[in-house]
């Protein structure tokens, strides 16, 4: 892949990778940093990419790995913070997105997703928001396509249970 071809890769995929990272990290600032890091790494490595490789899936893999490192650091920070804090657990405000645009039920699903274990959140977001296939998700998470699918289904079950205590779930998706 030539240098200028990489410009095209940025133009085509940056917004989506940024959105993915914003969703999985829950913070726009972290999505800014991690999306840049994703593409800088991609730039260093793109010459080794075999011709015809699925660039989009490859970028998701890099972004996913970076976000998993991020989660590891985040967990450590949170633990340290909890240990130092006398106020008890900090409540994570979660993703402050344009929730006004969403129905209450969708916003609730969004919050449940934000609370899922990392792998499930990543698998679910890749599958359901970005519609990657299970092979690509498995490659990103370093597991089989079958396990990737199991993560997604497990996430669905948790969402289903999380919605249980909501009196009614809208049966019709909003337009």
């Amino acid at each position: 892949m030539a240098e200028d071809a990489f410009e095209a890769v940025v133009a085509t995929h940056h917004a989506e990778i940024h959105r993915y990272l914003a969703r999985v990290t829950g913070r726009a600032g972290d999505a800014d940093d991690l999306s840049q890091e994703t593409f800088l790494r991609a730039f260093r490595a793109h010459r080794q990419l075999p011709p015809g490789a699925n660039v989009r899936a490859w970028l998701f893999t890099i972004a996913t790995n970076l976000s998993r490192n991020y989660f590891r650091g985040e967990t450590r920070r949170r633990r340290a913070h909890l240990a130092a804090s006398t106020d008890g657990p900090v409540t994570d405000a979660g993703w402050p997105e344009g929730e006004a645009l969403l129905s209450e039920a969708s916003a609730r699903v969004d919050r449940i997703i934000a609370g899922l274990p990392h792998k499930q959140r990543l698998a679910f977001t890749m599958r359901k928001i970005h519609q990657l296939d299970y092979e690509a998700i498995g490659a990103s998470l370093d597991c089989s396509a079958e396990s990737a699918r199991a993560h997604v289904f497990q996430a669905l079950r948790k969402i289903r249970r999380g919605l249980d205590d909501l009196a009614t779930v809208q049966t019709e998706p909003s337009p």
Partner: protein
Amino acid sequence: MNRMPPMCREIEPDLLAVATGEAAPARAEVVEAHVSRCAPCRDELRQYRAIEGLVADLRRAPLAAADPTLARAQLESRLADLKTRLVSFGVFSSPLGPILIARSEQGVSMVEYLPSETAARSRLARLAGANAVEDEAGTEGLFRDVLDYLGGRRTRFEWSLDLRWARSDFQRRVLDATSRLPYGAVTSYAHIARDIGVPTATRAVAQALRWNPVPIAIPCHRVIGSSGDLTGYAGSKVSLKQQLLALEGVPVAVGGAGRVERRAMYVRYLAEAEYCVPTCGVLATTPLSELTLFGSRERAEAIGLAPCTSCRPDLHPIPA
């Protein structure tokens, strides 16, 4: 969920697959048949389908707080910076042993003889601010040029060089003067010192060439001691110098560190337009700092020199 009847429990994964549109047709039929009889599972399926709808809403909803514009602009500028610092390299096994070739977007920045087939101990790590990335495919063409040279099929390198990591302006001047030495010719460190206008800096010239970042391409092997001794090459690789000079047709007497056989070489005095036999006039006693020696008449004529009109090397060549 655990209180579900066994049939319902068993069918649950397929039910999810139906809800997400991923079920194989045969499994979908089984699920449809089941939910037509089982009200709780029918409700489950409805709930999961509803979730699919809610997730589709999420997919379509913009992330208001996540505007990628700024990140994209920062990325573009970091990429531009990275490109100027990016050095891609390959490690190849050559007839001279393992060598590393590195290039930036400006040109070839390093040729290095390595002790083994890995870049682990390369000087590459010492290029301040450089971002080294292995890229064998991107440097293979350069290696082929080296192989062509070592095979005698090439006498010069049409490479652009990136000497940003040279140690000083002095070193750049030394490298520049050395790069003009033609194939098959030798001269002395003192001559290079004289060329760059610092005739007393012979030792500094030798040091500058010891750290030549692109040996072979900048032919520091063509620079020898004033006595004709090969002295040194790339640290302690004087045997490589001998090999390269032999390849270019420079007669080298073996034994010790090797010595160029001055009496067997054609001579150019300073920047004269002619070349002579080594016994012409006072040339035999002229210091090497004023001479360039050629392994053959062809090599001297290849750079446009004419045979001297008094010693006539064309009529009376050096006896073989």
